[in-house]
């Protein structure tokens, strides 16, 4: 496979994943704004931070009004991380790697882009927002579904999978990091249940509310939420799950290519360290520090993968 093709596949799936995650973040924020008017601005500010585009936002706007943030995150072409921008980049990558895609994957990507381009051509009214957000999630899911159903399980599959998991781990860590102050036990809240709306927002952002409730029967504590999103090995958006899947994908590449690369060791190292820790330990030594460290290492793994598999040179 061409290095360029590996690069294109990896980023195509990162971008698709990001479009879905951004839609989910907006959804969580919107819901929160509906249920409590007072903290609206704060909530939207934290969502922009989670999306990782706060600097750009502040250079363009001076307040965090709902409509403005929603527009910025969904359709602003000046924002390279807006849903519109990332889906277009995903589709351009798909065009670039077209020979590596099945017809189903290509068409679902192309149709997804055509549909979203239409949907996001004008500012989205709040009355339409739930539908628009659902469509964004569906379009990304359709590509992933077509890919699961039709892609050859070779290196094409591995690079697409790596892109998806790397982006997902990054996203989950960000959600937790921006909200970590809510999860931290304070004198006042020790032993008490978390603010309902806040914890729901965290879980919703990671599409984990239902799974969490199902596993924990409604018993919501900061420890349990953090444990679920960091350490649960069946939760497909948890850090451990994503890391373990990266290890699997890199090992498969090593077998396929008959050559083990440094990134495989790096991913294994990340996973080992994660699984040796416990949520209690993380809280004790500092959740924010833990998450910052994770994000840095996740990034470094991405860079190593790009080097190992000659994405650009």
């Amino acid at each position, binding site marked *: 496979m*061409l290095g360029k093709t590996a690069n294109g596949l990896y980023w195509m799936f990162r971008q698709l994943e990001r479009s879905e995650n951004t839609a989910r973040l907006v959804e969580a924020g919107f819901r929160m704004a509906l249920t409590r008017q007072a903290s609206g601005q704060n909530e939207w500010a934290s969502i922009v931070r989670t999306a990782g585009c706060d600097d750009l936002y502040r250079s363009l706007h001076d307040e965090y009004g709902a409509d403005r943030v929603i527009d910025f995150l969904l359709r602003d072409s000046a924002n390279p991380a807006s849903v519109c921008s990332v889906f277009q980049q995903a589709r351009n990558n798909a065009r670039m790697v077209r020979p590596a895609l099945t017809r189903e994957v*290509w068409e679902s990507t*192309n149709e997804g882009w055509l549909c979203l381009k239409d949907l996001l051509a004008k500012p989205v009214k709040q009355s339409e927002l739930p539908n628009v957000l659902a469509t964004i999630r569906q379009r990304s899911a359709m590509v992933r579904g077509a890919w699961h159903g039709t892609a050859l399980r070779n290196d094409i599959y591995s690079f697409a999978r790596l892109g998806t998991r790397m982006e997902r781990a990054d996203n989950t860590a960000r959600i937790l990091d921006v909200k970590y102050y809510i999860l931290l036990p304070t004198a006042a809240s020790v032993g008490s249940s978390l603010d309902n709306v806040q914890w729901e927002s965290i879980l919703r952002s990671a599409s984990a509310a239902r799974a969490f409730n199902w596993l924990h029967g409604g018993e919501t504590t900061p420890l349990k939420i953090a444990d679920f999103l960091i350490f649960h090995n069946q939760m497909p958006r948890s850090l451990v799950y994503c890391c373990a899947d990266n290890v699997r994908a890199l090992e498969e590449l090593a077998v396929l290519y008959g050559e083990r690369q440094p990134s495989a060791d790096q991913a294994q190292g990340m996973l080992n360290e994660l699984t040796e820790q416990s949520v209690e330990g993380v809280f004790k030594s500092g959740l924010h520090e833990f998450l910052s460290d994770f994000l840095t290492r996740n990034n470094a793994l991405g860079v190593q993968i790009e080097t190992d598999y000659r994405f650009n040179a």
Partner: protein
Amino acid sequence: MFFNEMQDENGDAREPYENYCKWLKDKDLSSLRKKSREADAFFRRTGITFNVYSEADADERLIPFDQVPRIISAREWSRLSKGIEQRVRALNAFLHDIYHGQEIIKAGRVPESLIADNAALLPKMMGVEPPGGVYTHIVGVDLVRTGKDEFYVLEDNARTPSGVSYMLENRETMLHMYPELFSGINVASVSDYPLNLRRSLSRCAPDACTDKPVIAVLTPGLHNSAFYEHAFLAEQMGAELVEGHDLRVVDGRVAMRTTLGYTPIDVLYRRVDDEYLDPLNFNPESMLGVPGIFDIYRAGGITIANAPGTGISDDKALYSYMPDIVEFYTGQSAILENVPTWRCCEADALAHVLENLEELVVKEVHGSGGYGMLVGPAASKKEIAAFREKLKANPAGYIAQPTLALSTVPVLARSGLAPRHVDLRPFVLVSPDRIDITPGGLTRVAMKEGSLVVNSSQGGGTKDTWVLED
């Protein structure tokens, strides 16, 4: 009067169209229109678009597709394909001769100045032996029709002819829309073109190739107007789609950067012009090519398809010599006729052309895509006057031809079925031991009433082309 390919003077279906017209009789306009919208949606979804540079946001546009097929009988095709094969053989022989002994010039059949001073001649190809002796691996021969048995070659495309993806996708679309038509009518299949292309290119592998040939398609990139076609062909052939920066010269071979390091390529189907192919040997500014690829080519390390320098064979200044060229190399007179052509570099011809501008089509010798030409009967007095000055200033830059009464095939227009002018570009594959011609080709159609310009860059559309089987 223009020759209507579907109907005779009495309004009855001509023989190749009989079955189709029988089927069409029961259809109403609104259901046909609905199918047209379906076809558009199909093209959009598949992403069969071309990029338009001038548009603000690099728009992707659909080439209009018309659902009424263009139908050619088995007998008509048999004659056309013989003529095409003969012409393509002659083109290859001519190229070999021009870049070697130049016997045709010595024999006085083609003027030396026309070759020696021609910008399309690539001096670096002198004496170079392309793998398998093939210069034009892929050729598009543009044909027009003016009567029942009157076909002319309008031009040859021996550099990087495009449009074959439309030929294939038009058929896919028709199969999708009207499967019942194909069970009732015996239409020759075109779908094995990509596989034939792969086989044909493989047979042209260079000496350096020791295993199954590795084939790649070289594209200028995502923003090229024909990018869709490049990606489509790579995907359909199971070849890699590469850009210049994916390639470099490694150990005497041209190699592509893979996830495992550099791997040699045997055959490069390039969709990049000669000039941009190699910044070390040609245009030093080129970012699209591979530094040093031409040296590897010359040493037999890679096959470049089509070979560099083939432009000398489809140059418009040489076009009028094609009947001589065919005869010189095949020993037979040309089966397919040339359009009568005045060479404006000759004084008599120029005088005639200047006197009859309002009736002639005048083309730039180095122009393409329907740009820079004058269609006399369709031009205003002012346009003709302006063109006259351009022509006088540089007569050698132009050729002129009579305005051909191009045949028509109906399209589904607003008012219903209405005749529009068409041409035909069959695609030809050349390998050392054989020539493959896909039955039919790409029919281009001028969508505007009365217009003779079929180029997609100027609003032309396409049709599915059927060759009937006996």
